[in-house]
């Protein structure tokens, strides 16, 4: 299987075979390969702020011996002067061997992939897709549980607007899993995704009770209630503190249940859980570098 020249735009573009191949390459990337991408240049075009995604891509490229150019704030690019994403990508296409783009505009990564001849990786396009996050989530689950088949995975928080939840649920549906969607009714998983999952035969349970659902779970994936995605500020105020996990949760869970979070967290998980064996969210962030190393190597044909 070759990924050389392939764009990484949406989790919907990947078959189970593709996902397994990426997971396998990610495991190999746990080892240092400091010369693998020597002489290669990554363009990082970030039209909105990001900490983990940008730093982990840059770290991944540096750890493989490649170089990084780019910007992380559209105010310092020509976009401020009115340059389009299309034109910006056309330029970066000639300056580098691979491009990572992040923008609040949905579909911008697909457009960038059409503009560029070099591979384009989507670092997040608004509320739409963030495939590298999904792949590192999948890798974290597989690494922590040593399998994907047979797991019961719960999603807690903003399931309505949370793109990480939507994409990870779709990715997990390639395996035999049971999914629990834990949220207030107003923030529940959209019907569109539930329908897709049910058509694939994935058992899905919706509830607002985190304690009773957690008993069953192998993984609990927590998300932030994202203020920036709410069209109505009043709705955000109503739900911003809907859940806060602390030690009281641990009485209800399996010994080896893992808690994940794409971060940043703003109060959903108490720091008192950080030192427990359940906390997997910082390892998850660390896995971001490993998986992005694999993706950069794959699309560059190395």
């Amino acid at each position, binding site marked *: 299987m070759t990924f050389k020249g392939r764009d990484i735009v949406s989790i919907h573009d990947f078959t189970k075979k593709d996902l397994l191949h990426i997971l396998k390459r990610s495991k190999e990337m746990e080892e240092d390969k400091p010369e693998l991408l020597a002489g290669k240049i990554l363009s990082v075009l970030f039209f909105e702020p990001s900490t983990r995604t940008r730093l982990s891509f840059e770290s991944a490229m540096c750890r493989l011996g490649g170089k990084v150019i780019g910007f992380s704030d559209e105010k310092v690019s020509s976009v401020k002067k009115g340059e389009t994403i299309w034109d910006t990508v056309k330029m970066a296409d000639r300056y580098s061997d691979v491009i990572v783009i992040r923008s609040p505009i949905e*579909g911008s990564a697909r457009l960038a992939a059409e503009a560029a001849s070099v591979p384009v990786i989507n670092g997040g*396009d608004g509320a739409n897709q963030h495939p590298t996050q999904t792949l590192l989530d999948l890798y974290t689950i597989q690494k922590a549980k040593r399998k994907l088949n047979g797991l019961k995975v719960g999603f807690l928080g903003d399931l309505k607007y949370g793109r990480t939840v939507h994409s990870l649920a779709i990715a997990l549906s390639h395996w035999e899993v049971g999914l629990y969607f834990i949220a207030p009714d107003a923030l529940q998983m959209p019907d569109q995704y539930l329908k897709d999952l049910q058509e694939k035969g994935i058992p899905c349970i919706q509830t607002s009770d985190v304690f009773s659902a957690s008993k069953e779970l192998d993984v609990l994936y927590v998300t932030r209630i994202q203020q920036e995605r709410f069209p109505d500020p009043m709705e955000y105020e109503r739900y911003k503190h809907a859940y806060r996990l602390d030690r009281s949760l641990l009485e209800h869970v399996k010994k080896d249940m893992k808690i994940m979070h794409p971060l940043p967290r703003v109060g959903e998980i108490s720091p008192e859980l950080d030192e427990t064996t359940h906390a997997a969210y910082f390892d998850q962030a660390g896995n971001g570098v490993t998986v992005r190393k694999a993706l950069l190597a794959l699309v560059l044909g190395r």
Partner: protein
Amino acid sequence: MRERKVPAIKDGTVIDHIPSRETFRIIRILNPQEFEHPISVTLNLYSKKMGKKGVIKIDDRFLTKSEVDRIAILAPSATVSIIKDYKIQNKIQVKLPKELNGIIKCSNPLCVTNKEEVRTTFKVVREDPLEVKCHYCEKVYTKDELEFMRK
């Protein structure tokens, strides 16, 4: 009730077998105000297969491919006949394309197609009931949510 004949036209186009409820939406996408020739619309005609159907007859005007594709989206059961000298020259069953290019507007204000000069592309993900997905922002729309591009 027996089917009643709609007055024949000499030259032009007849769109038949339209579900009655979609007839006005189809007229709207044809922009009848922008051409001068007569257009006649009949609603609630009895049809054995469909129950109630609509028929649109347009004098001296033939449809473009884009117009036929738009009709196929709203009324996949429709037929389009080209009439010359009162005779049917050609009759086609409309066919829903797998991909709709430059026909539908993405209603997501944050979609890149509403920010930059990009031709919209939608993929048909389900035919019945119709669901189409924006190639760029991946939003899925049902038939009732579709907004057609102005020509």
